[in-house]
C-alpha cells in the first residue's frame, strides 16, 4: 500500500491494518478526502460557477448547485468592462520584471556574500536579515514617501514599474535562501575554477548557477507569486487606472460593478497563480519547507 510503511508515526501501520483500526482508518480517510475537497475546492467551484449564474439565480434560496442557465456573458463583461487584458498585462509585466531584477541582483549579492567574502560581508548580511524583523505595515508610509521623491536622485517612481521592481530586490529571505544554497557548494570547486583562471563572474555563470537550478526555481516562483498576490503596495504606487495591477483594478471597480462580474474577474485574476501552483507544486512545497525550517 503506502510507499513509506517504514516510517512510524503516531499510530502504527500494523494497528491501522487490523480489524477495527482498518475500518476507522478507511472511514477517516474518506471523511478527510471528501471534507477537504469540500472545504478547499468547494468555494472555488462556487466562485467559478457562481459567476455563470444570473443575478436572480444568485439570490434564490436554496442556492442551485449548477448554474441552470449559464451566462458566460459575465466573464465577457468582466474582460471588457474592467479591461482585464490591460490589467493582466500590467501584473505580468511587473511580475516578470521583479523576477529578472531579483534573479540578477539577489543572486549576485548572495554569491558575493557566500563565496567572494567582501569586506563587512557579515555585517551587510546581518543588516539585510534584520529587515525580516520589521513588519511590512510599519514601513509602508516611509517607503511610499521615499518612492515619490527618491533621495539624492529626486525622481518620483509613482506609476513606474521600478516602484515594484526595485523594492522587490530588497528581499532578505531570498538572499538568505540563495546564500545558504551557495554555501553548500564545495570550496574546492571554486578553487579549481580559480586555478583554471576563471573570473568570479565566469565561475558564477558556468559552475554555480547550473548547480543551483532547484533553488533558482523556488526563488523565481516566490518572486512571481509575491507580485501577483500583493495588494497594498501596488495600490499605493500605481495610482493611475492604466498602471494598475489586476487585484487593485478589480477592487477599484468592485463598487459600481455587478457582483457576478466582479467574481468573474476574480476568477480570471486567480487563474495564473493557480496554474503556476499546479505546474510547480513539487518545487513550491520543497522550497517552502527547506526555507522555513532552516530560516
Amino acid at each position, binding site marked *: 500500500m503506502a510507499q513509506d510503511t517504514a*516510517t512510524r508515526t503516531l499510530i502504527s501501520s500494523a494497528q491501522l491494518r487490523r480489524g477495527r483500526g482498518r475500518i476507522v482508518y478507511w472511514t477517516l480517510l474518506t471523511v478527510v478526502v471528501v471534507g477537504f475537497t469540500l472545504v478547499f475546492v468547494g468555494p472555488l467551484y462556487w466562485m467559478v460557477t457562481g459567476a455563470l449564474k444570473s443575478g436572480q439565480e444568485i439570490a434564490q434560496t436554496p442556492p442551485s448547485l449548477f448554474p441552470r442557465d449559464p451566462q458566460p456573458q459575465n466573464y465577457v463583461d468582466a474582460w471588457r468592462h474592467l479591461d482585464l487584458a490591460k490589467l493582466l498585462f500590467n501584473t505580468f509585466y511587473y511580475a516578470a520584471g521583479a523576477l529578472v531584477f531579483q534573479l540578477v541582483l539577489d543572486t*549576485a549579492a548572495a554569491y*558575493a556574500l557566500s563565496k567572494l567574502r567582501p569586506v563587512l560581508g557579515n555585517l551587510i548580511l546581518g543588516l539585510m536579515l534584520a529587515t525580516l524583523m520589521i513588519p511590512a505595515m510599519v514601513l509602508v508610509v516611509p517607503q511610499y514617501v521615499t518612492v515619490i521623491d527618491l533621495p539624492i536622485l529626486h525622481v518620483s517612481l509613482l506609476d513606474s514599474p521600478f516602484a515594484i521592481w526595485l523594492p522587490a530586490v530588497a528581499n532578505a529571505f531570498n538572499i538568505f535562501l540563495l546564500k545558504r544554497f551557495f*554555501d553548500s557548494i564545495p570550496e574546492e570547486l571554486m578553487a579549481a575554477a580559480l586555478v583554471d583562471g576563471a573570473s568570479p563572474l565566469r565561475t558564477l555563470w558556468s559552475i554555480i548557477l547550473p548547480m543551483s537550478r532547484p533553488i533558482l526555481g523556488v526563488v523565481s516562483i516566490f518572486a512571481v507569486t509575491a507580485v501577483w498576490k500583493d495588494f497594498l503596495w501596488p495600490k499605493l504606487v500605481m495610482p493611475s487606472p492604466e498602471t494598475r495591477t489586476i487585484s487593485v483594478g478589480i477592487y477599484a471597480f468592485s463598487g459600481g460593478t455587478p457582483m457576478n462580474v466582479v467574481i468573474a474577474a476574480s476568477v480570471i485574476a*486567480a487563474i495564473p497563480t493557480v496554474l503556476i501552483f499546479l505546474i510547480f507544486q513539487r518545487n513550491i512545497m520543497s522550497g517552502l519547507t527547506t526555507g522555513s525550517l532552516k530560516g
Partner: protein
Amino acid sequence: MAITTAPGITRKPGRPAPPYPPGPRRASLGRRVRDNLTGHAFLIGAVTCFAFFSWYPMVRGVVMSFQRTRRGVTTWVGWDNYERILADPSFWAAWKNTLYFTFLALVLGYAVPFFVAVLLNELRHAKGYLRILVYLPVMLPPASALFLFKFYAYDPSDAGLFNSILTALHLPTSQWMQSAEMTMPAMVIASTWMNMGGAVLIYLAALQGIPGELYEAAELDGAGIWRRIRHVTIPQTRLILALLAMLQIVATMQFFVEPLILANGTGTQDSATSVAYLIYQHGFFQNDLNGAAALGVIMLVVLAGFSAAYVRLSAKQD
C-alpha cells in the same frame, strides 16, 4: 594560504576560507575593498535597493513620526503626532480589534493547521492530493479570495453559502459582516482559510522528523493516542510550534486586506478597523503621513515587545 584543505575533507558549511586571498591583515577599508572589487561590485545592486527601500525608510519612519509637514515646510514637533494619534477614538478600537483578531487567529489559524498536519501525517493515502488542496487557497490573490467570501460565503441573505449550510443543518443563520459581533470571527475564518496552507506544510515537515521509536516506546508504556500527542508529538515539534506562533502573531497583527475588502475598511461601528488599516487611513485618506508614521512606530514597538517576551520565554524553557 587560502586553500589549504586536504582533498576529501569537506569544510563545515558557513565558515569557508576565503578563496580569494584577502589583502594584508591591517590594510585600510578602502584598500581591502579595492582588493576584492568584484565581490563588492556583485553586492552593489542589492545593497542599493536595501538602502533605498528598507534601511533608509526605517530611519525615516522614526524621524517622520516626530515631524509635521505643513505647506511644504517640515518642522520638529516632538510627541505631537503621538498625542494626536492616541487621542483618536479609533486608535483604541483598532487596537482592541487587532488584539482580538490576533487572539482568534492564534486559536484558529494556529491550532487548526497543527491538527490538520497531525491528521494528514497519519494518513497513508492521498497525501499529495490533500497537500495540494490545503495549499491551493494560499495561491489565490487575496482580493479574489476575499471577494469570494464577501459576496458568496458571507451573503447575509439565506442564499449565502454559509447561511445555506447553516439552514441545512437547522442552525440559526447569521448576518456575518453586517453584524458587529460576527465581523471579527468572519474575518478570521476567511484569513485562516486563505493562509493556513503554509503552516500545515511546515508542520508536516516537522512531524516527519520525529523518530518513530519514540512513538513505539510510548505505546509500549501504554500511552494512548492523546498522550502520545501530548508527550511525543508536541514536545518534539516545540521549536517549530513556538516559531510559527511568533510569525503568526506578527503576521496577523498587520491584517489589512480583510477589513478593507470584507468590511469596506471600518465595518459597522468600527468593528473591523485594524491598526494597519488605521495607518492606511491616516496616511492616504486624511493626508496625515506623520501620524501614520507615528502609528507605525507604535506598532513596531508593540511587536518588538512581543518578540522580546517570546525570546525570554523560550530562553527560560531551554
